[in-house]
């Protein structure tokens, strides 16, 4: 959990810096302006200042981890998500917030190994579910079963896909069909990562490649860091589960 904590703090720092760079979007003339049904008081009006404060707190928490610092980070995370009317980047927001909550609980109960183990396992299991349930969700869709789904997403225009990937989809490259099936197999078989730590390492390696491609194709850099940050917790969960099988 310690490494997940460090990595999630690093992820949070990057996210805060990203929001700071686009602070014009939530200024009084921006898209996500304050006072339109989401009045969150001082926090909202001084979001830029608070983002800077958050980055300072993150650095402090990296130097000296403490539950009270985590409280601020959890609260600020929830408020920022509220400010953006639900979520900013969907899944990566959920993973970051979930991990923060679990780390805060973990830090809040230093004398309760059972609570700490529960936090660790919950995070590890949710990361496993994030792949497995995503795979289950794809199964009813014939485009995924036929191996055509990836081509569709590459050409849909919904994401800013680099031309090289769009050309690949336009030429109906068989590699894309293979990649479509590979994503399905990877996601549906992900619970195997909990069977043995060695298998977990394999799945984490595949996960890094998977998220790297998601970044390269769809630009989802936040997903890359949010999920990778939780891998140490996943490995510990795998060690816990495999020792009891």
């Amino acid at each position, binding site marked *: 959990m310690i490494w997940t904590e460090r990595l999630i703090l690093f992820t949070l720092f990057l996210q805060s810096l990203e929001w700071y760079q686009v602070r014009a*979007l939530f200024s009084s003339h921006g898209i996500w302006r304050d006072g339109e049904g989401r009045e969150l008081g001082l926090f909202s009006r001084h979001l830029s200042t608070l983002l800077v404060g958050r980055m300072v707190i993150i650095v402090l928490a990296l130097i000296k981890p403490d539950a009270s610092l985590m409280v601020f980070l959890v609260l600020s995370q929830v408020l920022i998500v509220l400010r953006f009317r639900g979520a900013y980047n969907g899944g990566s927001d959920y993973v970051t917030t979930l991990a923060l909550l679990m780390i805060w609980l973990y830090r809040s109960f230093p004398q309760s190994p059972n609570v700490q183990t529960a936090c660790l396992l919950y995070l590890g299991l949710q990361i496993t579910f994030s792949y497995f349930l995503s795979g289950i969700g794809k199964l009813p869709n014939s485009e995924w079963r036929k191996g055509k789904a990836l081509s569709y*997403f590459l050409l849909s225009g919904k994401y800013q896909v680099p031309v090289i990937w769009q050309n690949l989809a336009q030429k109906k490259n068989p590699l894309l069909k293979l990649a479509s099936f590979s994503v399905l197999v990877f996601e549906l078989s992900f619970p195997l990562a909990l069977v043995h730590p060695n298998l977990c390492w394999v799945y984490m390696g595949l996960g890094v490649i998977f998220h790297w491609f998601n*970044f390269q194709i769809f630009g989802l850099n936040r997903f890359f860091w949010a999920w990778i940050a939780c891998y140490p917790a996943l490995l510990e969960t795998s060690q816990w589960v495999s020792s009891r099988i």
Partner: protein
Amino acid sequence: MSLLRVLIPSWKFFDSPGSLTRLEFQTSPDGKTWSSWTSPKAPAVSRGVLQLFLNPWENAWLAQTALVEKLCAEFFDLNLKSLSEMKSLDSYRLVVYWVRTEIQKLSHQEKYFHFKIEIQNSGAEATTLTLASSVHEI
């Protein structure tokens, strides 16, 4: 996002092609002559090492396009007949702010605008539906 949603996320990513939304707007200096339809300008795509760490404008773009999807989802959930009926809703106002911000980047001469959202449903029976807004002042 409720706390429950954070603790028990749905974990659905890229599960189905679903529908595609496309936002376009027109501007006018007098409310009579209108420009051609224009789409918001997406940020330049770059996938270097730096963007792996910091990709703020592309993430903002994804969040902005999600606003349009949320507006459409609410439109159908509420079983409405036109976008004008959504004026008081948060999701509608956010899209208005986005369009207004885009126009202000392009020109300071225009006084009015309206926008439309084209919704393309994929699948065997591909259909396109267009939702049009009323006219707004910039």
